[in-house]
């Protein structure tokens, strides 16, 4: 699952910057990797791909800071 999320971020959200690799522990939020529009796309991807309903309350830094955190969140809510 981590690889799928990483692929999605690298290909869809960072498509314009070649050669950047994301590790599962990289901070996605605090360093400008993703901004609000990108986050919407990422949340849509999580919802459609893993059949998880991401409520506004769940849209927090803790749940989306790293690829590992996103995976944990999906597994908890599946």
């Amino acid at each position, binding site marked *: 699952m981590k690889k799928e999320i990483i692929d999605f971020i690298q290909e*869809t959200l960072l498509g*314009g910057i070649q050669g950047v*690799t994301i590790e599962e522990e990289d901070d996605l939020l*605090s*360093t*400008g990797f993703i901004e609000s529009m*990108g986050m919407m796309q990422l949340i849509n991807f999580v919802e459609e791909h893993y059949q998880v309903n991401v409520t506004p309350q769940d*849209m927090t*830094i803790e749940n989306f800071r790293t690829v590992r955190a996103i995976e944990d969140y999906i597994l908890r809510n599946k």
Partner: protein
Amino acid sequence: MNCSLSDYLSSSALAFPDKVAFKCGKGQINYRSLNKKASALSATLIDHGIKKGDRVGIYMHRCLETVVAIYGIMRSGGVYVPIDIKHPKARVEYLIRDCGIKTIITHETQENKVASILDSLTGLLVIGARIAKQKSINWSQATENEYEKTRTINILEDDLAYILYTSGSTGQPKGIMHTHRSGMAYAELTASTYEITHLDIIGNHAPIFFDISTLGYFTAVYMAATTIIATDAEVIFPQLLTELIEKEAVTIWYSVPLAIIQMMSYEKFFEMKFKKLRWLLYAGEPFNPQKLRKWMLYFKNVKVSNIYGPTETNQCTYYNLNEIPSGKSPIPIGMVWKNTEYKILNEMDQVCESGEVGELLIRSSTLMAGYWNKPELTNRSMYLEQMEGGYVKKYYKTGDLVFEDKKGILHFKGRKDHQIKYRGYRIEIGDLESAINQIKDIEESVCFLHEEDEIRLIALIKTYQNKAIETNMIVSELRKMIPLYSIPQEFYIVKDFPRTATGKIDRKDLKLPE
């Protein structure tokens, strides 16, 4: 006497050394340390050959280091050039080459990205990250350099201070050059218009490549106020942004309307008090009047100002809402502020009568020096009025269509060309459409802004033989060519577009397909 933006920092550091100048996330810096670090960085830059007028790129996310970089560069006599870290590699490379940037200041968290972006460039100096192929200096080394008074560079008001790149009609971005004078005029005009003092706490949402950021980065420093830089995480999650305003007791908030609208969708938004908030300033695109009404009904004690101005002028008009908007009609852009003159000209270059729509021309102390490397474009964008005795008045032709009502209030009516302003970004519709048309199977495309609850950027697409095409594919192809902000939110495949009698696309008649 203040002769440069950097002098503002020296003065405020003398008057209020222990006052918090900037805060971002968990970090903060007072005026004394900021001044010291900026001086140290300027000494480092001078040691490495930066001369007055040299352009220095800033490749950073939202962080405290942006302030040190901006003031360090300006104090060295250099010109700061923000680079959007979300731009495709090709666009960043273009900017670096076009602007003749030899030095880039970045942040260690951007190391991998910077390395990848710079891999086909050579001979650069990188400060703030280790890049194998380039000469690099780490951040603490660069900002702890002992600064000697003898190195003070004599900066004139007329010297260049910063260059902001924005979308250009030729398909390549253009660099808008601002001097210390135009930056200082902006700081002084905003301070007087919004009665800003050292007691103010300014909420800064904009990244540094947007001129909206100059309120927090220039005006606040001029008045020795405190600026709260929203972190990238806070910008992503509107609930955090909302809580930031509350927690930090922000007194002046300035952003694009979208950020405010997103905050209003947070369920606890209307439980907020925003006790200290006294100004809500917005710019960059129209604010849906019904949304604004909702905001104003709840926060009755907060004054609201609609700010207008192309990056070439930073800000030039404002409209303070004395009443809560009741209908659906757009909020006017208001009147010009001090030190600013305007004209509205029709297609025959004649001054428009009241109510007649024409192009807005602006003459102001905040006006840019010109477009970097594009003297012809600079000349074409200016309107010269010959006065008596050979004196010439210079106006900037905004390309924006406006009319003046009987009370002397200006109203925005659209663009002369096909440029749009979306979430504060300028987008040339022609550039966007030609990028879409390069994608396999796409024959033709038309893009437009659609306004319902919020403003959305829509693309209508005609494919060869009406082939089906996946939105994800279009988006990832576009990501390689154009910045994310200019990618439409929705794509619709249509058989054809509305056309005029002569077969041209009828842009006035574009709407969402059923």
